[in-house]
């Protein structure tokens, strides 16, 4: 079960809305709660539009201009005297700048999104170090070479003076990771860090992330659509669908005994390296709805094989309580209630 070390970040009931040109607000996140704990990897998995990237961007206060946090809290160091609510800080203020990169690092899917073409790798990494805690130019350069070594870049003394476009995709992502680690954050958000990479490079980058996360006891939030990456990397898993966490559990439970019908269906639809030839995959009917056409009630009900008419299509099930394993689903609630009743009867 989830360890009881104090989380470094606690997201509570987070709601985010985007205003659309010529349309009403679109709800992208609905009551999302998550905990990031030191030394643990939280895997966040879901299909496109489920809100996994919006969650990350809200935590760093880098939502697009038409997006706004409508409700909830993002607590840094919750339960300590230093507790800070990120949602209450000015997005462009100094405190937020310190947190961004200094406390919470971000690794992007496409490292070129984080790197400038105009500056050398060394320049950009030195800037990231010096912005947060300037040790002077010479020391910063030493630190950059150390960082490049840490992320497994061969010949760091020469690579420090190359430009990002001179590097391969795998090396670029290593620089992206170095950039995220430059100011020594204790929380790291990796948003699809290996999606743009080939499978052998992906294996190398995941191994690197794992090693750094363990060595530095980082709280890693790993966002991906790939159930394989989740299985290999995560300690705990949050499955998201249309802006909600529909299931949260330790990784072995999610794969061994998934509770939410969406998690179950998602796992069945993953192609299998051991499948018999020409075997069909289990599918989920329909497609993920557009965010502006959010279904009433449980957002998954139009695609759910276990949909209960009159219930799932009218009311949304309660969100998963923070820090506990569970699924946001009436069917799961009912099953739990029956189990509890049985227990009471046995006791009586």
């Amino acid at each position, binding site marked *: 079960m989830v360890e009881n070390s104090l989380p470094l970040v606690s997201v509570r009931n987070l709601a985010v809305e985007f205003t659309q040109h010529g349309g009403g607000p679109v709800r992208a996140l609905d009551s999302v709660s998550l905990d990031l704990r030191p030394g643990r990897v939280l895997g966040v998995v879901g*299909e*496109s539009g489920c809100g996994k990237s919006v969650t990350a961007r809200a935590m760093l206060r880098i939502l697009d201009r038409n997006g706004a946090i409508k409700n909830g809290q993002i607590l840094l160091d919750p339960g300590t005297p230093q507790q800070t609510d990120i949602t209450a800080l000015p997005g462009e203020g100094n405190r937020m700048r310190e947190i961004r990169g200094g406390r919470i690092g971000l690794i992007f899917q496409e490292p070129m999104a984080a790197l400038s073409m105009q500056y050398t790798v060394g320049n950009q990494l030195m800037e990231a170090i010096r912005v947060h805690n300037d040790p002077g130019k010479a020391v910063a350069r030493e630190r950059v070479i150390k960082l490049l070594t840490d992320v497994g870049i061969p010949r760091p003394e020469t690579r420090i003076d190359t430009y990002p476009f001179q590097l*391969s*995709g*795998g*090396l670029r992502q290593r620089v992206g990771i170095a950039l995220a680690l430059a100011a020594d954050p204790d929380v790291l958000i990796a948003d699809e860090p290996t999606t743009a990479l*080939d*499978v*052998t*490079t*992906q*294996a*190398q980058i*995941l*191994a690197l992330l794992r090693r750094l996360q363990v060595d530095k006891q980082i709280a890693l939030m790993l966002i991906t*659509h*790939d*159930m*394989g*990456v*989740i*299985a*290999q*990397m*995560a300690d705990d898993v949050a499955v998201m669908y249309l802006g909600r966490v529909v299931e949260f559990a330790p*990784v*072995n439970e999610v*794969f061994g005994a998934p509770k939410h019908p969406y998690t179950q*269906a*998602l*796992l069945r*639809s*993953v*192609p*299998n*390296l*051991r*499948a018999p*030839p*020409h*075997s*069909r*995959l*289990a*599918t*989920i009917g329909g*497609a*993920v709805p557009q965010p502006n056409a959010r279904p009433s009630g449980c957002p998954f009900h139009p695609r759910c094989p276990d949909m209960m008419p009159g219930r799932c299509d009218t009311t949304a099930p309660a969100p998963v309580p923070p820090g506990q394993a569970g699924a946001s689903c009436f069917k799961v609630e009912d099953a739990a209630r029956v189990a509890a009743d049985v227990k009471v009867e046995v006791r009586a």
Partner: protein
Amino acid sequence: MNMLEVSGLTKHYPINAGILRREVGRVRAAEDVNFTISKGETLALVGESGCGKTTVARCILRALKPTSGAIRFSPADGEMVDLAPLSKRQLRPLRRHIQLIFQDPYASLNPRMMVGDIIAEPLLVNGVASAERHRRVMELLDLVGLPAAARTRFPHAFSGGQRQRIGIARALALNPRVIVADEPVSALDVSVQAQIINLLLDLQEQLGLSTLFVAHDLGVVRHVSDRVAVMYVGRIVEVAPTVALYATPRHPYTQALMSAVPKADPLMRDAAAAPIGEVADPANPPPGCAFNPRCPFVVDRCRTERPVLRDVGAGQLAACHRAEELTLAGVG
């Protein structure tokens, strides 16, 4: 009966430099590629980016002119034509027989054309009469699982998976003898990807399609293909029936590729050992076997002598000097 016989297919891109734009080198995108696809068979071409799989696909479609080699194709039972030397004019009557399914369902459909017109376009170009076109469009929509009402709507009204169905309907419009599918499901969400894989499997069975399936995802390939050809830096390094390739890979690169796939099972962690280093530069491949700098089984011979693709038993072909002596791990 073979629908397609590719032999010695080679595609080089010149690297020009200087004010005279003199050729200073060549990117060897595809080098001496050989394979066949028989009637009703799906051959998967797999490899990492830059390995030349898309170059091979584009040569077969004759969107590219190969540098050398032959692409023999059967336009009618008992006939064989080499597509490689043909001119544009000579290719025109043959193009209807080889159709492409694109990767990106957002970029490959004209946003200003109605779905019915998109699917009817190949029919129109080939002079099919209006009434017959209409009948065929309805038939195709039904075949790929779209409602008849889709005919008069525009692509933007459809999700990624539905758009890919439209692209598949267009590719099938002229009853092609060969389908080239270039990463047809890699842009889709997992749940939608499964729907499209199932559709492709249904179509293979119903229509007996011969398919070249270009992909990087070994999980997807396992479900759809009869045989698999693995490419590395422009060359095929292994070809085998799908089940045999996964169970007993005979080339170290195939093994590396399979072990690198993250398995969707948390109880099977850390079994994967990522191959060291990076894919070689096709403009400057290492001498000998291109995989030798990354290969855990490398011996001196691998650094000097290039292994040829040869029969290593049980219908498997591998280009590795040590194929007979190595026992490589598959995935069951």
